[in-house]
Structure formats: structure tokens, C-alpha cells
């Protein structure tokens, strides 16, 4: 059974030969840890990260991990990339340098490197003071070069692996507040709903076109990433999410399904309040299910027939502070409680940080390969 078949079986809630393994994102603060892992393994350093993990130069690393999926991403168009620089420590790595250590992305959002040179923070929101959205020019989805790399890699990988595709990192809620500012967007959601509806409609237009293009390029799984939850609950209330985000996500998912793709939804934190909604609109895979925020066994018990769980291994506690034995125990617990009947894809439950132990990170993958074979005993 190759990786592709293994992934499909798991998502279809059938038992494959073993629990499939997923890579993780290597963007911004996790990029230094990636280099540390590569050094440890004696693999060459890489120049690029990625929101879903596996660029072409990371192929040897993905094989060493035993990852059963590959990921591609939409990029800024060729013309923008010619003028831009690439810095993996930035949330959007392609950007025009507008000041020292400050990049402006394709949408006009400016980010600056922090003092410890480990991540970037937004210092300028292009829609912050705008009253009329028509004054803002949205990027052109049809600009040449946006999907070239996604198409090339998806075609290369899709016989052997299921290929995930992501727009450009973030979806409706996060993208909207990057453009508008967090407090301002929340305020608008209550007091200026017309502006928010229009902004989200414009984002829908862009993301819908991107969805079609990614699936045409050969993507099997549309990955929608939108951090709408925090450690102990939702950031955006379920009521606001249902009003502004859910119907637009449904339009996207309907299109993806019509074209035969699976849909993965990523949000950090505790999103239990909207899991029934996610199932209702057709999400197949929920990622990353941080065990400190939601108990994976409980999610399996309550939603395991409809949802595939992806991620689930602690990056906040076990990877940085646990022993090798504790990593193994956590992986074994997850296999015992969540693998029956398929519907489980294992990986660390988010980007691993520089304080993670390399041995612990690798042990997640090695333990699954050793003990994750079906039938689960």
C-alpha cells in the first residue's frame, strides 16, 4: 500500500496498513528548528519553509519522516516575486523590502522582524483607515506564475501521495484582520457589518478562484487554515463566525467537493463550539487538535464517524519538556484511542518551536511507524 492509498483509506474511515503520517508547517518561528533537525539528520540545510511543510528541497526530509502527504501552496505572481525578497522568518515570506527588516506582502500588509529574529509582527494594516473598500485594489488571482510551482509539484507527487493545497497561508478571519487590524475588524463585525460583508465577499471571490485553480493543478486536499480559536475557546464568537465565515466557507467547500477534493480545516486552539458546523458544511479533516486544548479521544468519540483527526501530538508540553518515553506513550495513547476504524492522521499538533527536542520530534514519526500498524491491538 503506498502513501496515497494509506491516506485515502484513513480519510474514508477505513483501516489502512498503518496510521498515516503528516508533515508540519515550517514557517517563521519553526524554521530555525527545522534547520536544527536537518543538521541532526545530516541532511542539507534548506532555504525555504512553507505553511504546509514540504517544498521540493525538503523531499529527503519528508521521506526520512515517512510523511504520507505532500503539500503545495499558491504563491504571489511571478512579477511580484521578481521585485520581492524571500525570508522564511516572515509569516508571508515573499515581500517587498520597505524598511530595514520590514517586508510588505502582496496584499500591502507590512511585517517587521522581532528583536530575537524569530518571527515577524504586523506593523501596517492596509485597510485600517479605509472607509470605502472600492479604494483598495485586491490582488489579481489570474496574474501569471501564481500556481506554477503548485502544479509542477502536485503532478510530480500525486501518484504516490495525497497532495494538500493551501491558498496562501490564511483564510477569511485571519486574512481580514491582517488587512483591517484585529480590534478594528471585531469592532466592524458589530458596528459596521456592511463593510465586513463586502470585505468577506471580495475574499470569497479570490479564494474561490484559488480553490478551482489549485484543484485543477492536481491538489487532492484543499487545506483551509484560519485560526479562529485560542487555547481555551473561540476567538471569534460562534455567532459571528456563523454569520460572516460559515456561509462563505460552505461555498468554497461545495466547489472543492464538486471537483472531487477532500477538505482539511486548520485552526489552533479549542474550536469545539463550531465542530458540528464544520461537519455540516463538509469538512473532512480537522487539524491540528492540540491535546492541551481539546481531548483527541473526546473528539474521536463525538465526531469520529464524520471527521478525520489530524495532528494531535503535544507541541506545547511533550515535544519541549517531555522525555522520549513520554512521547512514545502519548503516540501510543493516541493510536489506542483514536485510530480504530481509520480517521486518524498523526503528526505534531502544530509547528514545532526551537525549544522542542529533536529526538522527541523524530520519535513521533518513528513510534507511529513501529506501533501504528493495523489492526490496532
Amino acid at each position, binding site marked *: 500500500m503506498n502513501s496515497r492509498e494509506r491516506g485515502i483509506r484513513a480519510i474514508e474511515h477505513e483501516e489502512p496498513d498503518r496510521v498515516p503520517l503528516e508533515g508540519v508547517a515550517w514557517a517563521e518561528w519553526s524554521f530555525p528548528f527545522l534547520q536544527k533537525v536537518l543538521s541532526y539528520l545530516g541532511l542539507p540545510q534548506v532555504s525555504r519553509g512553507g505553511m504546509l511543510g514540504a517544498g521540493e528541497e525538503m523531499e529527503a526530509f519528508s521521506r526520512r519522516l515517512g510523511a504520507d502527504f505532500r503539500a503545495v501552496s499558491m504563491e504571489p505572481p511571478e512579477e511580484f516575486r521578481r521585485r520581492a525578497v524571500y525570508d522564511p522568518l516572515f509569516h508571508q515570506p515573499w515581500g517587498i523590502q520597505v524598511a530595514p527588516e520590514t517586508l510588505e506582502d502582496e496584499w500591502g500588509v507590512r511585517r517587521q522582524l522581532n*528583536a530575537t529574529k524569530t518571527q515577524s509582527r504586523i506593523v501596517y494594516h492596509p485597510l485600517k483607515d479605509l472607509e470605502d473598500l472600492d479604494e483598495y485594489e485586491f490582488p489579481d488571482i489570474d496574474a501569471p506564475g501564481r500556481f506554477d510551482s503548485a502544479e509542477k509539484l502536485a503532478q510530480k507527487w500525486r501518484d504516490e501521495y495525497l497532495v494538500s493545497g493551501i491558498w496562501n497561508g490564511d483564510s477569511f478571519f485571519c486574512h481580514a484582520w491582517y488587512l483591517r487590524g484585529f480590534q478594528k475588524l471585531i*469592532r466592524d463585525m458589530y458596528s459596521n457589518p456592511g463593510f465586513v460583508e463586502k470585505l468577506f465577499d471580495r475574499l470569497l471571490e479570490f479564494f474561490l478562484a484559488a480553490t478551482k485553480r489549485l484543484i485543477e493543478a492536481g491538489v487532492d486536499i484543499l487545506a483551509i487554515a484560519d485560526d479562529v480559536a*485560542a487555547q481555551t475557546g473561540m476567538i471569534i464568537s460562534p455567532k459571528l463566525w456563523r454569520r460572516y465565515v460559515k456561509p462563505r466557507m460552505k461555498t468554497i467547500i461545495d466547489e472543492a467537493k464538486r471537483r472531487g477534493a477532500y477538505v482539511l480545516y486548520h485552526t489552533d486552539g479549542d474550536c469545539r463550539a463550531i465542530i458540528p458546523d464544520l461537519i455540516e458544511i463538509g469538512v473532512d479533516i480537522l487539524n491540528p487538535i492540540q491535546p492541551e486544548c481539546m481531548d483527541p479521544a473526546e473528539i474521536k468519540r463525538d465526531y469520529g464517524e464524520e471527521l478525520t483527526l489530524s495532528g494531535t501530538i503535544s*507541541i506545547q508540553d511533550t515535544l519541549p519538556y517531555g522525555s522520549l518515553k513520554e512521547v512514545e506513550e502519548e503516540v501510543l495513547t493516541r493510536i489506542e484511542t483514536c485510530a480504530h476504524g481509520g480517521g486518524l492522521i498523526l503528526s505534531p499538533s502544530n509547528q514545532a*518551536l526551537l525549544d522542542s527536542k529533536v529526538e522527541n520530534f523524530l520519535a513521533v514519526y518513528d513510534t507511529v511507524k513501529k506501533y501504528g500498524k493495523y489492526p490496532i491491538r
Partner: protein
Amino acid sequence: MRDRRCLLLSSLSKIRDCIVGLDGDNLIASIKDALKDGVNPYEILNFLRSGMEEVGRLYEKGEYFISELVYAGELMKSAMEVLQPHLKVDQASSKASIVLGSALGDIHDIGKEIVKSLLVSAGFEVHDLGVDVPPKAFVDKAGEVNAEIIGISALLSTTTHAASEVVKLLKKAGLKGKVKVILGGAAVRDWMVKEFGVDAAVEDAVEGVKIIKSWVEGAKT
């Protein structure tokens, strides 16, 4: 007289209800009406604060979420812009002074902003140093403004360690014991109290504000 008191209570309750019900459309008009009717601005302030406390309780009960906390904070800011000119400085003295910021290396500020807004609403004097704040800056500011408390926000496990540096620098400056330190954020754990020498470590913003209030109330009894 009784009718007048009823009228006052009704207009004050309306202001409180606007905060709790997140009714931005009617809040400012209600405050302006109350001021025009001669309602004591400090009574208005107390009812606004009581409304914010109720918003915090609804959050703890799981009926409100972060977006409600943020919007209530925004409404409180707008309300204070109207009310501030009517408050005399000597009567508006703060409960305590607190220096707040996200730890060095950490650029996240949603949690910090919520803590700030709840503390300001509750009458604290907040000195917000922003994000990515070096440990020395926390201690220098605390000395400069005679702060009773330092609040450090850290979302990532890699940035929580900065709290231990703040505690060391406080000791060096002879401020340990005079200034309490609270560390808050998603990756913050109980064991960090002992390990880093902070006075409290919490995951949740509202819980953190409760601890800070209990310290200040405890010190005044």
C-alpha cells in the same frame, strides 16, 4: 425624590445593559443623556465597570468569547472618551499601577490587549510596553512609575522563559517583593511559578485579571 432616584437608576442600568448587551448604537447616547440629566459621572463609571465585570463573568461561563471581550473593551474606550472630561483627576485615582507587555521574542498581543482593556476598565493605571519587550524594559518601567505589578504575556513556549529574566532583574534592582509578576498565555503552565520565580502563571486573560484584582484588594485590606 423617589421618582428622581428611579429615573437615575433606570438610566444607569441602561448604560450597564448597553455594555453587557454590546449595544454600541445606544451606549454613547445613553451616557450623554445621563450626563445631561445631571447624573454623577462617577456613578456612570461604576455602572460601566459593573457592566465590564458582567462581560467577564459571561466569558467565564462560556456564553461570551474573545470577540465579545474585545468589543466590550472597545465600547468602554468610546464611553470613557465621553466621560473623561467630566471626571476630576483627584477623584479618579487608580487602584494600582501595572506594567504590561508581551515577552521578548513574542509578537502576539490579543491576550495582552484583553488584559489591558479589562484592567483599564476596572480602574488600573496600565503602562503598556507593547510586544517583543526586553526584560530590562519591564523592570525599568516598573521602577519609573512605581508599579505594583508586572504582567508578561507569552503565547509561545519559547518566550515564556523571559519571565525568569525579569524576576532576576527585579531582584538586582531591589524590587523583588515590592513588585509582583504575573505570567500569562497559552503556553504558560503552573510549574513556571516555581521555575521562573513569578508570583502567578495563568493560561487565560480573565483569570489573570482576577488574580491581579485579588492581589490589590488583598493589599488594601
